[in-house]
């Protein structure tokens, strides 16, 4: 069925075999997994690290003097160190482990914003955001009387920078902005945006869920205040994530949740919170998941973030051009800089129907609103079909997708 041979990404091409889930047939066809933006597959190294940990080293962390507890703590805290280096945080105290991007954003909304926001203050986001970077701000605005304001996006799926900058003022206390749009693939020009926000004294949270898996991240160079991302999108386990925050800000913030591990001393009159990052990590963490996430970091580094970025850039260009060449396909999201994601429509076929027809041919794409309903509304669509790439995809996958679309056209002819 494949029309061309993989013509690029050969250096990275062998990575595909590291991912056991990709080596299967679905509905009688080789699986073509184009849904990594929703959740990525894991290399065997990650799956095995988690299982090995459970078979040999599991115990609760931080609180035990026995050998297993010590081993578990070393592995768990070792993963934190890896994450710290991976995004170039200045200090492991800045790596707060969460259950995902969503919890990380909620933590900032509740611990950074809620105590200080009041009526008249504003939180600024863009029209591109994922629900996880919208609803937490809506909730805190409702709780405090602050106002949520939203910068428009244009027809290509770029944030309208003029509008965004015009909305910035001293009233704005925080800007929440995605690194890469999960719906349209737009890479936001963060350097400019953050520099501008700085001038107004606006704190910046970057939703990096779709950034981290695809490019080298240096939080210090970015200049933001918070950077949030999820383990499961970067080939690590579900139920893991990171909130990176500047130490000085985290230091000032009250804890988010109460419980074990986040305190130094509890009495009924007076409770002393633990130091960073533990102040924000209440209860038994996802130990196995975090250890797996550390292995995912090792894996990504062994492949090389720059190779990944180059590979995906080339492949995305191929994806976009091949899709555009299909009769009746309309690309949704044609921003100047895009990464890994391409949304589209085929004639008037509802994306959900398209998803079923492709799945029937072994091609897994996502269809629907992609947790970005405002983006859909902006384009007047009920949803889109979205193909998204991970480091393991190749041009053959794209060719399969295109071939499968032909069949959809026939059925709905």
């Amino acid at each position, binding site marked *: 069925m494949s029309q061309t041979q993989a013509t690029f990404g050969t250096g990275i091409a062998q990575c595909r075999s590291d991912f056991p889930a990709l080596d299967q047939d679905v509905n009688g066809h080789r699986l073509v997994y184009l849904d990594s933006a929703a959740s990525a597959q894991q290399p065997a190294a990650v799956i095995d690290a988690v299982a090995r940990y459970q078979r040999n080293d599991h115990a609760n962390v931080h609180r035990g003097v026995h050998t297993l507890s010590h081993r578990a703590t070393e592995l768990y805290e070792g993963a934190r160190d890896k994450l710290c280096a991976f995004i170039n945080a200045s200090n492991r105290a800045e790596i707060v482990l969460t259950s995902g991007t969503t919890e990380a954003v909620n933590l900032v909304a509740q611990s950074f914003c809620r105590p200080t926001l009041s009526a008249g203050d504003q939180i600024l986001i863009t029209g591109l955001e994922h629900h996880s970077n919208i609803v937490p701000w809506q909730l805190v605005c409702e709780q405090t009387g602050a106002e949520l304001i939203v910068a428009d996006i244009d027809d290509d799926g770029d944030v309208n920078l003029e509008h965004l900058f015009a909305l910035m003022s001293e009233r704005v206390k925080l800007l929440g902005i995605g690194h890469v749009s999960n719906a349209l693939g737009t890479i936001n020009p963060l350097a400019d945006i953050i520099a501008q926000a700085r001038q107004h004294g606006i704190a910046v949270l970057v939703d990096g869920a779709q950034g981290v898996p695809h490019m080298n991240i240096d939080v210090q160079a970015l200049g933001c205040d918070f950077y949030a991302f999820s383990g499961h999108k970067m080939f690590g386990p579900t139920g893991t994530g990171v909130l990176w925050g500047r130490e000085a800000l985290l230091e000032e913030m009250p804890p988010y949740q109460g419980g074990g591990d986040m305190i130094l001393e509890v009495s009924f009159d007076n409770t002393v919170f633990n130091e960073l990052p533990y102040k924000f990590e209440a209860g038994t963490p996802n130990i196995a998941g975090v250890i797996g996430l550390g292995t995912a970091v090792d894996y990504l580094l062994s492949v090389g973030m720059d190779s990944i970025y180059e590979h995906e850039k080339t492949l995305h260009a191929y994806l976009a051009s091949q899709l555009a060449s299909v009769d009746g396909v309309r690309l949704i999201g044609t921003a100047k800089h895009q990464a890994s994601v391409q949304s589209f429509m085929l004639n008037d076929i509802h*994306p959900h129907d398209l998803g079923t*027809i492709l799945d029937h041919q072994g091609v897994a794409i996502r269809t*629907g609103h992609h947790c970005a*309903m405002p983006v859909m509304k902006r384009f007047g669509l*009920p949803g889109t079909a979205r193909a998204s790439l991970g480091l393991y995809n190749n041009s053959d996958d794209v060719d399969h997708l295109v071939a499968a679309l032909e*069949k959809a056209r026939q059925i709905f002819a």
Partner: protein
Amino acid sequence: MNDTLQKDELRELYREVILDHARKPRNFGRLDDATHTAEGINPLCGDKLRLYLIVDAEQTVVSVGFEGSGCAISMASASLLTETVTRLSVEDADACFRTVTQRLTQANDGASATQETDLSRLRALDGVREYPSRVKCATLAWHALHAALKQSDSKATTE
């Protein structure tokens, strides 16, 4: 790869009658004088429709309409629903809800004997049974029907 078999299965799902109802839904539009109405939402794919019923004094559904948007399966199912339940008693209409949801979620199609209603046109939906992730689309309008018959304004989801 046996393209023939697949195409057949897909054709089972997307039968001509389904495509036809999806493209030209019957009884599409709001009924301003509806006595019962309910919204159906399928958060999975964004299907969203509102069903309007006019029930007369004898508890007969005299008119049915719907508006909304969604995939071919949900639109066709809603359209077929309007044709099926018009002129039924409220009781029989609600029995249809149960029959259809059972029929689509269970492997066999045991149900339809429970009533007199003509459900033959609903056979068009049978292909959905092979696509468990699409059953919600096919049953959405029926859940809305059930909700509408229970109360005058409510929201149904298939989650």
